């Protein structure tokens, strides 16, 4: 499904000391520094897997996800998804994937959710019958029927996130990227979202790449985790085995001690 080999990506960041003098100096001669976001990342993911892609802030998670979504082009390395290079065949590639960015919204703010869904139907060219089936299924699974005719702005975060999940699955993608899908949600919505992801994986065989800082999301969904820190893969294997290293029954503490031990905290 996904093959990533020795992926590298760097970008230029500006740097300057504080104060007006330094600000003026940097106007004349900006001090740029090359930051390596990914230093040769490799992994492969098979069809039907649910993989937790974890690591501290700034580790390179989003960069990897953006490359896999075809938004970003790496400096070097291989990324093949269903036999395609995402950034080279962007349109064909994105037609087969679904994406949820937990901190962003894909719904139109001022129009009923259903209108947003219909727009997505047209964008992905989903045939009418297939769309109706998908919609029925998603509305039932996520319990959306009460607010499909409301504009996204009047939904609670939990309701909105359930609509976001539905929106990214209307075209029945085989591969789903979830970037912090449970951020800011209350316990009930969190459990609903988790149960839904689990169900889509089990029933439809959707491959899921899940990025999150919520260890409980990972525990509930992903048997396998890939841990990235400072642009390098530090662990790729069973979640339980990783947690065993942390030496604490509290998952958060265990994760923090693993980050500390690996020097990426």
């Amino acid at each position, binding site marked *: 499904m996904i093959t990533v080999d020795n992926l590298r990506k760097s970008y230029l960041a500006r740097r300057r000391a504080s104060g007006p003098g330094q600000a003026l100096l940097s106007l004349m001669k900006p001090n740029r520094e090359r930051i390596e976001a990914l230093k040769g990342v490799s992994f492969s993911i098979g069809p039907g897997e649910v993989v937790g892609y974890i690591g501290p802030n700034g580790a390179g998670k989003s960069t990897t996800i953006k490359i896999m979504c075809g938004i970003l082009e790496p400096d070097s390395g291989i990324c093949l998804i269903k036999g395609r290079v995402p950034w080279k065949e*962007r349109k064909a590639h994105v037609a087969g994937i679904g994406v949820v960015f937990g901190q962003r919204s894909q719904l139109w703010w001022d129009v009923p959710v259903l209108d947003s869904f219909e727009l997505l139907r047209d964008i992905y060219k989903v045939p009418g019958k297939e769309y109706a089936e998908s919609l029925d299924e998603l509305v039932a699974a996520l319990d959306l029927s009460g607010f499909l005719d409301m504009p996204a702005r009047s939904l609670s975060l939990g309701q909105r996130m359930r609509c976001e999940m539905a929106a990214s699955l209307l075209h029945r993608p085989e591969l789903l990227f979830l970037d912090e899908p449970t951020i800011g949600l209350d316990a009930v919505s969190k459990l609903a979202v988790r149960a839904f992801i689990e169900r889509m994986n089990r029933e439809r065989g959707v491959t899921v790449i899940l990025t999150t800082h919520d260890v409980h999301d990972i525990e509930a969904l992903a048997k396998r985790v890939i841990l990235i820190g400072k642009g390098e893969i530090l662990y790729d294997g069973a979640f339980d085995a990783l947690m065993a290293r942390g030496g604490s029954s509290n998952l958060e503490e265990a994760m923090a001690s693993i980050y500390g031990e690996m020097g990426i905290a």
Partner: protein
Amino acid sequence: MNPYAALFRMRFIRGLSYRASAIVGVATQFFFGLVFIMVFQAFARSGGSSLAPAQIASYVWLQQAFLALIMVWYRDRELLSTIAAGDAAYELCRPVDAYFFWYSRLLGGRLAGAALRCLPILAVAALLPDPYRLCPPPSVAAGLCFVACMALGLLLIVAITIFAYILTVVTLSPSAPFIFITPVYEFAAGMIIPLPFMPEALQQFLRVLPFRLCVDLPLRMYSGSIAAADAPGFLALQALWVAILLPLGRLTLNRAIRGAQSVGG
């Protein structure tokens, strides 16, 4: 439905939902229309311009009625905030061309704005007493040329203003690009004062720029101040500008997106 047409439709529907804004808009534009006509006709009487009183009236009324199609400061605020907040990342995960997607959206927004406002203004303006009345065009040819120039002018102004959105991808500040472009356009297009009121040398200079093709050209075509016989040449000029700006904008947007994404994790 074609995805671009679907987006156009969506934006059009959304635009129609702002009833209060349309009512207030009509009232304001009606007031300004009357004032502008008085001022310009007074100028013309003292020998300031070649425009006849009836031509001034039609220029001003059409300007007010189709404001949404010709003004530069029409903004899609939701799109701008989407860009500034980074939600535009979603649009790159869609199997569509980002440039033409935005283009259809802006086009739909403008047409929705005009659809709600033009009829009441035109209807009332046609019933006013004489120096203020909106007269029919002098010939059928002039009327048809007006429609054609207006349509191509609309394609042109969207191709121009979309650069402000593209610039927002880089600056992340939605207002800055508009502060830049608004005064230049408003003056050069004939929005503030019609071009025939300007000194001949200035007019010659402004005719080189594309802006007047969006306002001055269609509005004067209607009243016969620009001869219908000259229309083919002008239409070709408009089409030429659109043909230059579309690929240029598309290229710029793709580069801007690439640049924007190299920042951050």
